[in-house]
């Protein structure tokens, strides 16, 4: 290279001048206006006057969605704190919430639409404009829609809630595809299915503020929970300030177990045996409460007497003695008795269950057993008990539905696999796509989801996504290049939750609904765009209109049409305040005991079941015909439910939701279950695979910790710094039998795969188990996630803080050895059932 000198410089300048005069690059200039620097004197002063704003918004690191205040300085988000006015969160956010700042500015973030130019997985990309990207996508979608096959467009999401979900579903309904996948089966699906079969709806809240006793099966409430901050702070407050006993059944000594009066380690999948045994103790010792019996159905008979019901329950649980449960679970029978007695005698008590209890074979049935235990102690929907959660009910604009609307049957598992896939079977979507017998999408678009990481047999999913012959066109909306987006054909840069509009509706821990909104704290970086702003644009290009023109508009309209919020001042109020709740609202308990007027037009009594229902609403031809066919046998009758006759009164009771046809009674005897050959009454079913394990096999379980979500925080440096390696927990006895010492390299092998890691030999886990957290071992996801700058050659342009990244380990991902096994009842992915061999490597 020749050194620059004045002559060369002037020559270059002259040629440049010609180029510039010809308008090169003129269309995308950065700056507008004209230089004004000396007018009015020499007043050029580019000093940064720190302008600080405090803006209320809502978190999205996890599904809890805490209200927050974001502090913005010079256009940069500098700090997040809890919203002091929130009655849900009481002004608190968690470690992940605090690290939300990392989501916006990390240097591996994707800021522009990208189009694949090499083969899938070759990591060759070309930046394209939004216009090009949307034109191409709209073209493919229009083609499918025009051909009358809108269902060949599949959309799958991991975390879409509230208005993020509502806008997406509105678009999809206007477009006409019902092939919409979620991720609930990798989370808690079976828990909801168990609840829906009983009290109609789902989502239990635990009323820690009023409780006197807490028994917890497999919910690590102090570290992670769908409603973490609102519930966990109330639990520790109850425990310390009011001395509320807390017993935790868990495979591991979690933080929740650590703070309990007692940690009760158990064999994975035996929660149900203990729950049934507790009910056994309570029934046999006469500790049960009769209050709830009239709302319970425990035999085929709808009108059984109290005594008949008590006798039936006793008979059902007779074989589940504490000694039986001890044999199954390893928890001493006397301990089960002691806790059962304490639970029953407490004025009020919370029966807590979560994934530890339900992510197993027949997990939905375990949840039904938990509901039974709560019911016989009158702790269902009563202050201090397990209560029906209360969330904000938003009204929102709705667009015109498509004339043709269809869905591929690939969302609910293989035929016969799952009895009640009411929350779908998301982990089987890719295996079903592979199978192909139920149709394959031609366009697959995923967002806030990472199927090649979070599912069982994730290497298998990865291979399918990579194969262009399986799904020809794949679109991904994401903020970071990860295990799945590497196989997209078009990557769309998503906004982070700190750059977008939403309304939120998450359940309150205090039984009073709280409305909150999310608003952009900063402008979206680069060309990042909110999905809610993409949908109306895409609709136009395909040739239809939505009833709203972007996410902000959607939120604005919702605020102006939602009762309560509207009167409080609507959108403008919510922007300033962030949260709203009805100041006159009373905590919502005991809805089932509400008496209902049954004198309305078309309301008839079904004498068999005691259900009052509206034959007109059900679409029956006449009252007589409706009576003849009966409530349970009339299709559509569950939507016409009015009340349940109990004695001579009509109660709201537990109305069926749209998923289970049932009476207003708690269906502890379930026709729905019986008709599918499943246990009609809650029972305990041992995990089949655990009955035939070889002597040297262990059960593999996975878990979450306090500072990471499943797949969306690995790139948050402050979280990665605290948790970046995930050695496998193993009890000294189990380790000793295998000659494994703390820190030894080990190999974990299942029938689907194997991985290598190190052993964390600890007294904090039950023998016979190997446990490994599931958020690490990233293939990509930025320098902090994977430790690798990127799959593209060249070094990291990571932030200078990355030079201080002192850790060298980045963990392993257990899902390579995790089969996609479903709970045959509720469809949950059975994370905690897999037998593995563990050897010193």
């Amino acid at each position, binding site marked *: 290279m020749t050194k620059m000198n004045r002559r060369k410089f002037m020559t270059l300048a002259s040629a440049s001048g010609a180029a510039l005069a010809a308008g090169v690059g003129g269309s995308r200039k950065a700056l507008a206006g004209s230089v004004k620097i000396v007018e009015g004197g020499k007043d050029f002063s580019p000093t940064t006057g720190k302008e600080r704003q405090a803006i209320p918004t809502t978190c999205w690191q996890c599904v809890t969605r805490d209200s927050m205040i974001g502090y913005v300085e010079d256009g940069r988000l500098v700090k997040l704190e809890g919203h002091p006015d929130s009655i849900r969160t009481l002004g608190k956010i968690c470690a992940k919430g605090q690290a939300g700042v990392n989501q916006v500015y990390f240097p591996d973030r994707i800021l522009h639409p990208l189009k694949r130019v090499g083969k899938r997985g070759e990591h060759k990309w070309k930046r394209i404009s939004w216009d090009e990207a949307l034109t191409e996508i709209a073209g493919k979608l229009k083609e499918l829609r025009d051909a009358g096959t809108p269902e060949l467009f599949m959309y799958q999401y991991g975390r879409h809630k509230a208005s993020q979900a509502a806008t997406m579903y509105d678009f999809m309904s206007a477009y006409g595809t019902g092939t919409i996948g979620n991720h609930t089966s990798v989370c808690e699906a079976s828990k909801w299915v168990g609840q829906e079969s009983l009290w109609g709806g789902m989502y239990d809240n635990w009323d820690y503020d009023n409780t006197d006793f807490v028994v917890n099966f497999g919910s690590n409430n102090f570290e992670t929970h769908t409603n973490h901050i609102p519930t966990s702070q109330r639990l520790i407050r109850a*425990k310390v300030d009011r001395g509320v006993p807390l017993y935790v059944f868990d495979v591991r000594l979690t933080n929740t177990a650590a703070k309990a009066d007692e940690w009760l380690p158990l064999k994975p999948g035996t929660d149900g045996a203990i729950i049934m045994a507790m009910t056994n103790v309570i029934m046999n010792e006469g500790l049960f409460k009769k209050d709830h019996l009239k709302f319970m159905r425990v035999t085929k008979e709808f009108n059984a007497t109290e005594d008949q019901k008590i006798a039936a329950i006793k008979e059902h649980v007779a074989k589940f003695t504490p000694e039986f449960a001890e044999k199954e679970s390893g928890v001493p029978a006397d301990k089960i008795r002691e806790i059962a007695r304490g639970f029953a005698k407490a004025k009020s008590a919370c029966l807590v269950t979560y994934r530890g209890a339900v992510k197993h074979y027949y997990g939905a049935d375990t949840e039904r057993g938990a509901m039974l235990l709560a019911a016989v102690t009158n702790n269902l929907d009563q202050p201090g008990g397990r209560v029906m959660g209360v969330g904000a009910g938003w009204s929102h604009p709705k667009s015109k539905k498509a004339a043709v609307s269809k869905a591929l049957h690939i969302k609910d598992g293989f035929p016969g696999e799952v009895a009640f896939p009411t929350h779908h079977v998301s982990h089987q979507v890719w295996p079903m796509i592979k199978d192909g017998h139920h149709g394959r999408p031609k366009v697959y678009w995923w967002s806030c989801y990472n199927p090649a990481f979070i599912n069982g047999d994730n290497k298998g999913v990865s291979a399918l996504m990579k194969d262009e012959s399986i799904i020809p066109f794949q679109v991904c909306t994401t903020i970071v290049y990860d295990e799945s987006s590497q196989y997209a054909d078009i990557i769309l840069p998503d906004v982070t939750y700190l750059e977008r509009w939403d309304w939120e509706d998450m359940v309150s821990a205090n039984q009073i609904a709280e409305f909150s909104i999310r*608003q952009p704290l900063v402008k979206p970086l680069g060309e990042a765009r909110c999905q809610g702003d993409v949908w109306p644009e895409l609709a136009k290009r395909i040739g239809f209109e939505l009833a709203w023109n972007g996410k902000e508009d959607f939120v604005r309209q919702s605020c102006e049409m939602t009762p309560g919020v509207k009167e409080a001042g609507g959108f403008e109020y919510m922007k300033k305040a962030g949260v709203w709740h009805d100041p006159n609202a009373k905590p919502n308990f005991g809805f089932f005991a509400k008496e209902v007027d049954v004198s309305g037009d078309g309301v008839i009594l079904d004498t068999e079941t005691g259900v009052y229902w509206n034959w007109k609403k059900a679409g029956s031809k006449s009252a007589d015909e409706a009576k003849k066919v009966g409530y349970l046998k009339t299709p559509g009758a569950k939507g016409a439910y009015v009340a349940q006759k109990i004695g001579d009164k009509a109660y709201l009771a537990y109305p069926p939701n749209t998923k289970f046809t049932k009476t207003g009674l708690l269906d502890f005897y379930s026709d729905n279950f019986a008709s599918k050959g499943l246990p009609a009454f809650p029972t305990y079913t041992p995990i089949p695979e655990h009955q035939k394990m070889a002597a040297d096999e262990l059960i593999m379980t996975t878990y979450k910790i*306090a500072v990471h979500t499943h797949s969306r925080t690995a790139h948050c440096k402050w979280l990665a710094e605290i948790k970046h390696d995930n050695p496998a927990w193993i009890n000294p006895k189990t380790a000793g039998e295998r000659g494994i010492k703390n820190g030894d390299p080990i190999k974990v092998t299942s029938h689907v795969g194997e991985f290598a890691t190190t052993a964390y030999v600890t*007294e904090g886990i039950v023998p016979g188990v190997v446990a490994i957290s599931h958020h690490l071992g990233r293939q990509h996801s930025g320098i902090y996630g994977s430790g690798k700058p990127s799959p593209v050659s060249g070094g990291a342009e990571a932030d200078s803080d990355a030079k201080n990244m002192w850790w060298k380990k980045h963990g392993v991902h257990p899902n390579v050895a995790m089969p996609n096994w479903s709970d045959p009842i509720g469809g949950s992915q059975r994370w905690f059932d897999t037998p593995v061999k563990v050897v010193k490597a």
Partner: protein
Amino acid sequence: MNEITKKGITRRELLSSTAGAAAGAAAIATGAGPAEAAAAEVPRWGMVMDLRKCIGCRACTVSCKSENDVSLGRFRTVIQEKTHGTFPNTKKGFLPLMCNHCEGNEKDGVPPCVKACPEFPGERATFIAPNGKKIRYRSGGTYKRPDGLILVDAAQCVGCGKCIDACPYGVRSFNPYVKAGKDPTKQAADKCTMCAHRIDNGVEPSCVNTCQGRARIFGDLNDPDSNVSKLVKEHNLAKNVLLPEEGTHPQLFYVDPNNELNTLYTKRQKGKLDHFVDQIP
């Protein structure tokens, strides 16, 4: 985008107009701010850590990173987590650690870090008490403010690291991004300031603000009615401090009815700071 206009606005406005206030002003007033502190002439800031209530969630650790721009590789506050006992009677405990803002020994009231600082006493400075009274004191590379906070003034620091070695708790480190004012070839010492920039504006420290267990209680030990004073009295915490034998007189007290403190605490090894890194096993 809007300024929040509900309660607490005065403090927020105060913070937003404070030039040079560090990132992240708080939303919640301490309740132990100027109003309460006015009872005593000069506050004596302190903290009580209620070990019963710490659930090991690490929100404090992360919020401190954010509030105080703490680079990777060092922490101003950590949770030490320890599993002990034998299965199935295993226990696990969580111990929050940060600078103890020591009073110093009875003789001279100077904590070991300040004593070790070659730049103490340094520049003269003025502390304005809540009642408006001006109190003159000597600052330095590391120094004690009249309200008891032990602070570092990077401008006066020589980057010698003597305070880092001198602290028996090992809570200090070098800040790779801040040069020592008196020797720019070196890095300045750094540690917890008890969020002095927030306290001075009537807002509680960031770690306290985010603590969902309310395990961290902040306030004025000179005010007998403050929550911290009441807790110290109620639980007789005067000796429930870390390493009492060092005679440093920490102003951080631990509520510890189960006698976990000694079991949970991992002391620093001489010359090392390995104990002061927050890790979830």
